[in-house]
């Protein structure tokens, strides 16, 4: 099966948040329950951007960034959702094997097998999975595998009015993304960037950006959580086996020697 992907073009997005609504609707995810404090909703606050972060029931949301470009204010939009990384931290740390790659490259949490330990939540470099206390599992974007297997587009893509979101073979989208970035650069946006081409072994969600990832709040060099696993184990094992063992060797051995020299008092 050909590797599939999503492509999000920030330069075409109008931030209507149709994708957000469509995702909630198709996946039957509840709204963020408002916590009213002093008569004001303390969860869904602030600007047009809400809810403030992804959650166990919000799998895609638009992020708004205001940037000063040579005295002119730019209002940038970007999409926050699972990146479906080729090298997926969540999959690596999952202790039950509930998280896996499907043949087409998307990452899925098996809701039947997940025990809700929360490790993927800590491991994801994009803070995507969230533990659902009600369901008892970690939840995130499923790439609408249920729709796709019956020949439909994912809900967010179907809903996108300006065509800022596309779903296709990854190789095709990669070529389209590269072409679009070339156009943007030619139009003077010298920092234009295709995010996801190489990050974490290649993401299955590609981003056309008209500025550097950092400006959009995306990590420029996202790290695999398990990258230093061997070093971390060595840090613990060497400290235990060598450094903290020294005082015992030093003190208790001296005790033994003292006892032996005293004629084996014991």
């Amino acid at each position, binding site marked *: 099966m050909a590797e599939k992907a999503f492509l999000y073009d920030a330069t075409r997005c109008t931030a209507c948040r149709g994708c957000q609504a469509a995702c909630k609707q198709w996946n039957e995810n509840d709204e963020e329950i408002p916590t009213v404090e002093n008569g004001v909703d303390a969860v869904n606050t602030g600007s047009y951007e809400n809810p403030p972060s992804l959650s166990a029931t919000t799998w895609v949301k638009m992020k708004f960034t205001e940037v000063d470009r040579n005295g002119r204010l730019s209002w940038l939009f970007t999409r926050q959702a699972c990146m479906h990384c080729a090298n997926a931290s969540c999959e690596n740390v999952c202790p039950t094997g509930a998280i896996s790659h499907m043949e087409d490259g998307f990452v899925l949490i098996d809701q039947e097998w997940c025990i809700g330990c929360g490790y993927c939540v800590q*491991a*994801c470099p994009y803070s995507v999975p969230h533990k659902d*206390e009600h369901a008892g599992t970690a939840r995130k974007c499923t790439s609408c595998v249920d729709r796709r297997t019956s020949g439909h587009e994912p809900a967010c893509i179907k809903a996108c009015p300006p065509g800022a979101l596309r779903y296709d073979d990854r190789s095709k989208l990669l070529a389209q993304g590269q072409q679009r970035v070339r156009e943007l650069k030619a139009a003077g946006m010298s920092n234009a960037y295709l995010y996801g081409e190489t990050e974490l072994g290649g993401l299955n969600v590609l981003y056309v950006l008209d500025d550097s990832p950092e400006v959009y709040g995306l990590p420029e060099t996202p790290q695999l*959580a398990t990258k230093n696993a061997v070093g*971390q184990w060595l840090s*613990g094992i060497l400290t235990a086996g060598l450094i903290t063992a020294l005082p015992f060797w030093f003190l208790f051995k001296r005790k*033994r020697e003292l006892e032996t020299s005293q004629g084996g008092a*014991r």
Partner: protein
Amino acid sequence: MTWSAPIWIYLWLAGMAGGAYLAAFLGSRFAGREQKPLLPMATIVGIPLAVVGVLLLVVDLGSPIEFWHLFTQFKFLSPMSMGTWILLAWVFIGVIMVVLWWFDSRVAPEASASMKKLAGYLSWVNVFLAVGLIAYTGVLLAVSSESLWASTLLLPALFVASAVSTGVAMLIVSAVVVNRATSEGSSLRVDRETIALMAEADAIVIAIELVVLIGFVIWLVVSGATDALGILAAGSLAAPFWVGVVLLALLIPLALDMAARGKAAEGGTLRTIVTSSLSVIVGGLILRWVITIGGQM
């Protein structure tokens, strides 16, 4: 917050259990084989601590009844998977050792030699598992994308030093309790010299832990994780960090152990040592708390 109280209490309990075992093993080996009570004490007190910790973990799962899914996998890359197996093996072998010791002392003294031998071999297996266990409590957090946990390679070292320190403290407190509860001449008693030596050893381990903590802080700064550090040093966790970790886990017990150094562990000196140990144990819990919570802020 995804990982809350059950997790940091568990990391503290498992670290203390494994640390006590490692310390007791090393102390017994280096001092000669006659230091009998230490290793059984560490095993008998450590196993319930680890088991209580595991129960906390299971209860904290989203789907506690499905905890057995953990035992269908063996994933080198997943510290939680490795930790599950290490902990299971350590407790299992520990229980066998306790049974062998019990047989040896009570039931079948005539079979004693072979029982002792087998328990001796198992005690070697379990010391490697104990090292894995205490390392894992730090690796679990360090293999993640939270900057306080993952920006350095020193979190496992810090947790290991704290595990050994709290483990020794727990042994000291257990020894004092056992000595009070048993009469002179009982084979369960730990002599005063050994208690004093353990306090001295703990002082060195605490000094190592202090150095590791300083290295950890410097490394956080160098790697640019100053936001994460700020939460500990000057943010909402500053009070427990400075009072709980720096004072209770490190400086106070270090000062008390130094004051008790070279004196027989009795009367006022014994009280000083026990106070120091209790401070270490409470400080170790606060260390797990501020690191676990701080990493998720």
